């Protein structure tokens, strides 16, 4: 489509007043201990670390650092709870606890949403509308399965594995805790969970909630700390299963350490998803899908649509519309209800993203960033688009985990498919076309665990999620997610 020099102006006279979510209703303690055996207990070495608000660079709370001895205690509590209480409980009773957790999470959703945004930097709109409701939905979903496992695996007997060690990332702290805890508990396992060191608060609030619903002590234990705490869980001899979500690099280390131990494991790792736009797609809605695919949660999403592939005949139109749309994205205070893109989770992650911005430019990519203003303190990155890059560029190959999109064009269906699959990852993908047959052909061809058609980043507890190749192994969610927490006889 030919275009004139006409330009739209989105910096309008009429502006949205700040609409910050109130924080009067939330409680964050100055210091958090470890949640072991149903109680908050101090770490043995009395070591603590700060968790900060990435939008203000201010400390929110001091949080206990668990060492090997603390992990020992947590695993022992989980083992005791598994043997004496949880595995002996009627499955329907387990279900009741899960329903109570789900309902309580809904009741406290405002508090969880605000704390998730404070601690992690994600916009309140997302924590309120996505993270917290989905977390509750996972508990509801697996609560229903607790007493129906014989129907999930007809003709087989499903027995729990025992103690599950679970290590979760900082991009969806509460939601990942729910993904991990809900199926484990539904199947009769007990849990030692470690949240990421930059975002421990909602997991600790979840610990309070577990205590408030009278969950038997030790069924869920939450130990906070950094990589060495995680390593202690992975290497603990009395842990029967490891569930890890995080980087491919750490996933490799874990797999190496688990080799030969007989422990069960699921790994949900990185991604570099292709988002493929065909010329016959509904272009304006596809542009929304591109935005949602890469700028959702500041691009801190393992299944982000970070590699855009556009059919050449609409490439100019898509770029022009995408750039225009990027201008309307509001970057800023995560607690403001009108914010579209919040703060980068940590200084370290911002440094990593900025390094990729330098790499992309050094590689000859054309970088476009929206002209939005950024707050003075905090960690921020403007929504960024790299065009003029190709499969051999690092910004196309490597997971950046930030609001950075790379764009390439293609001519034929086969070229799109080849490019989509030319990656060590295989977690997700997207395809945009008005033609049903093309959707099926493409989704069958892309080697990835989740592929969205004419939408992106949609999640449901009943849908399995997981990767091919270096994106991990095992599935979470849905019926498949149950399979990861049972031994079948």
């Amino acid at each position, binding site marked *: 489509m030919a*275009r*004139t020099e006409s330009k739209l102006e989105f910096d309008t006279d009429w502006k949205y*007043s700040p*609409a910050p979510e109130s924080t009067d209703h939330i409680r964050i303690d100055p210091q958090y201990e470890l949640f072991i055996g149903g109680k908050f207990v101090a770490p043995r070495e009395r070591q603590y670390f700060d968790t900060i608000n990435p939008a203000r660079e201010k400390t929110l709370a001091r949080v206990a650092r668990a060492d090997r001895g603390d992990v020992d205690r947590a695993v022992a509590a989980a083992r005791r709870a598994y043997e004496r209480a949880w595995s002996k409980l009627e499955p329907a009773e387990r279900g009741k606890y899960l329903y109570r957790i789900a309902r309580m999470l809904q009741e406290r959703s405002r508090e969880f949403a605000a704390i998730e945004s404070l601690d992690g930097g994600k916009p309140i709109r997302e924590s309120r509308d996505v993270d917290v409701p989905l977390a509750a939905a996972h508990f509801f979903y697996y609560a229903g399965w607790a007493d129906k496992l014989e129907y999930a695996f007809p003709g087989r007997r499903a027995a729990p594995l025992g103690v599950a060690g679970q290590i979760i990332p900082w991009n969806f702290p509460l939601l990942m805790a729910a993904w991990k805890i809900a199926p484990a508990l539904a199947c009769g396992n007990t849990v030692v969970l470690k949240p990421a060191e930059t975002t421990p608060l909602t997991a600790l609030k979840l610990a309070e909630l577990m205590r408030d619903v009278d969950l038997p002590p030790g069924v869920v234990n939450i130990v906070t700390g950094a990589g060495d705490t995680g390593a202690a869980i992975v290497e603990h001899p009395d842990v029967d299963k490891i569930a890890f979500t995080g980087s491919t690099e750490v996933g490799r280390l874990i797999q190496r350490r688990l080799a030969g131990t007989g422990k069960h494991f699921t790994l949900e790792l990185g991604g570099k998803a292709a988002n493929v736009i065909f010329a016959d797609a509904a272009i304006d809605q596809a542009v*929304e899908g591109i935005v949602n695919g890469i700028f959702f949660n500041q691009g801190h999403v393992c299944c982000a649509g970070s590699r855009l592939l556009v059919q050449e005949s609409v490439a100019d139109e898509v770029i022009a519309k995408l750039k225009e749309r990027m201008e309307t994205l509001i970057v800023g205070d995560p607690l403001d209800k*009108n914010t579209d893109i919040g703060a980068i989770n940590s200084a370290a992650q911002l440094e990593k993203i900025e390094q990729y911005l330098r790499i992309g430019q050094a590689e000859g990519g054309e970088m476009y960033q929206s002209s939005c203003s950024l707050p003075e303190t905090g960690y921020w990155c403007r929504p960024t688009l790299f065009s003029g890059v190709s499969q051999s560029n690092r910004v196309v190959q490597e997971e950046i985990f930030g609001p950075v999109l790379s764009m390439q064009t293609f001519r034929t269906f086969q070229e799109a498919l080849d490019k989509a699959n030319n990656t060590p990852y295989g977690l997700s993908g997207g395809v945009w076309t008005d033609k049903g047959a093309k959707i099926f052909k493409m989704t069958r061809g892309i080697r990835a665990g989740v592929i969205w058609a004419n939408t992106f980043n949609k999640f449901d507890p009943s849908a399995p999620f997981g990767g091919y190749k270096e994106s991990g192994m095992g599935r979470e969610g849905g019926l498949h997610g149950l399979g990861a927490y049972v031994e079948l006889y």
Partner: protein
Amino acid sequence: MSVVASSLPPQLPVLDRVTRVDEVGVEERVARFCSRSIKKESKVRALKLALSMIDLTTLEGQDTRGKVTQLCQKAIHLHDAMPGLPHVAAVCVYPTMVGVARQALHGHDIKVASVATAFPSGMAPLSVKLEDTRVAVQEGADEVDMVISRGEFLQGEYSRVFDEIIAIKEACGRAQLKVILETGELGTLDRVRRASILAMHAGADFIKTSTGKIQPAATLPVTLVMLQAIRDYYHATGRRVGMKPAGGISKAKQAIQYLVMLRETLGEGWLTPEWFRFGASSLVNDLLMQLEKQRTGVYQSADYFSKD
């Protein structure tokens, strides 16, 4: 490019090339606009802006000279108890009432708009529609709101619909032409998008959703699709076309949602009565009530606002 376009006779665009519309995606986008939080000064400005964009409308068979005069009074004196209010953009009536409105609005910067072309069905020969238009213009209408022939559009007779708009535009002379697509009868958003492109290429100054006589009238998804068509046309030709959602917008909250959508789709250039209108009547009093609420902190009874 715009210069070239205006010196040549209008050409019917290839409608097959108009981008497809995905209804689910449109609704998702609309939901995002509706979740914007508009408070305090931002809300007051939006309410006043909405007031200034209203085409205050009465299109009843039972309209009388008295009723039209009363409506014009309201257009001038929205609520004099509250200082600093804008006036509405226009008063919209049938051709036979244009003269009455013209007289009642004399000396005020409020436009007179007239529906024409066998409104609301458009089921009349072109000659009758042209005559209808000429009468409205002769009576002093600044703006003409025409309806497209939906039957012919749905049959795929695009060039006839196109030619008809061109003919009416010519009959309008210096009056602005608003083209009503009657989206409630078009059935799909794909057709809304195509009809919008067709109308703009035929010379529409504004495109408008509905007559108000057919349900559904204006909706946010339909308006979004039309705004996106306006944006594409603007980028292709450099010419601005206005937008008028009409019918079914009676609450201030809805009006603000439309303005949010307008702001984030077309931006500053369109946030003015020159390029955006609400076809509505009962919306006025809800906007006034909300403004009073912002000013005094309490809602007042509907009895404190004139009903016209």
